[in-house]
């Protein structure tokens, strides 16, 4: 069983979670060309490295952030999205 540590609920079976993909900057609707929108919406980045992703603990419907190594699949840390130390 793979364990993910939810910032609100503690250590849980990863089956209790749903992944929502990497945190990405939003696009400026006034400055974005169609091709950029298409890329933003339909193409995944799929690079190697460490990313910060949105996750949801399904039973409590709690959304939080997790830093994960995409090569080793190691979850480095998890934190609440309002945590001022979180994204640094």
């Amino acid at each position, binding site marked *: 069983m793979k364990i993910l540590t939810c910032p*609100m609920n503690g250590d*849980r079976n990863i089956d209790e979670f749903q992944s929502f993909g990497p945190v990405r900057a939003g696009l400026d609707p006034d400055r974005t060309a169609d091709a950029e929108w298409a890329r933003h919406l339909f193409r995944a980045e799929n690079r190697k490295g460490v990313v910060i992703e949105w996750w949801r603990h399904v039973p*409590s419907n709690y959304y939080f952030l997790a830093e994960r190594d995409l090569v080793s699949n190691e979850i480095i840390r998890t934190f609440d999205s309002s945590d001022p130390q979180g994204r640094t």
Partner: protein
Amino acid sequence: MEATATYPFMAGGAAEGTTLQAGAVALADLTACPRFGLKGGGSAAWLKSRGISLPDINRIGAYRGMRLLRLGNEDILLLAEGGGEALAGLREAWVRDSGAKGYSSWREEGWAWLRLSGLRAPQAMQRLCALDLRADKFGVEDIAQTRVAQVEAVLVRAPAGFDVLFDVTASAYFARAVAAVTPYCQDLPTETEGNI
């Protein structure tokens, strides 16, 4: 609560005919008991404005004889057993208030409330839930939001057992899942007893 409400295990309900077992692992249906959930921005502030003190997240407080479950920063559930007059009064005040007050999360309609009790209830929970629910790890004021019998659930301790709140449409399935694990809860080695 409407006097005409039909809950799954009642006559005419979706789970009618499903056995709620008694014995060493017993199941009781409390779905018809009054409860009231608030969710969304303003919920906590509204309850505090009524003089209700809120516990920390995933902890249980009390208000006028009811259990008050803090499921999230802005997700609060009140459980009333018995008359529920205090709950009805609070609900009426909430309905009348036209200011910021959060939203009803409709827990009285969306969730089933089953109580698992009996001598072997802890052993049944061992098989139904992955969490460590021993008394020293999961106390009477703790809340576990997790999976029980593979169903997303809110789990708290009850007198001589556990209260489980989950999607009301899974009522019959849950009763069958408890029945399915019960035969395996009879003959655990005696040295595990007392540690649960």
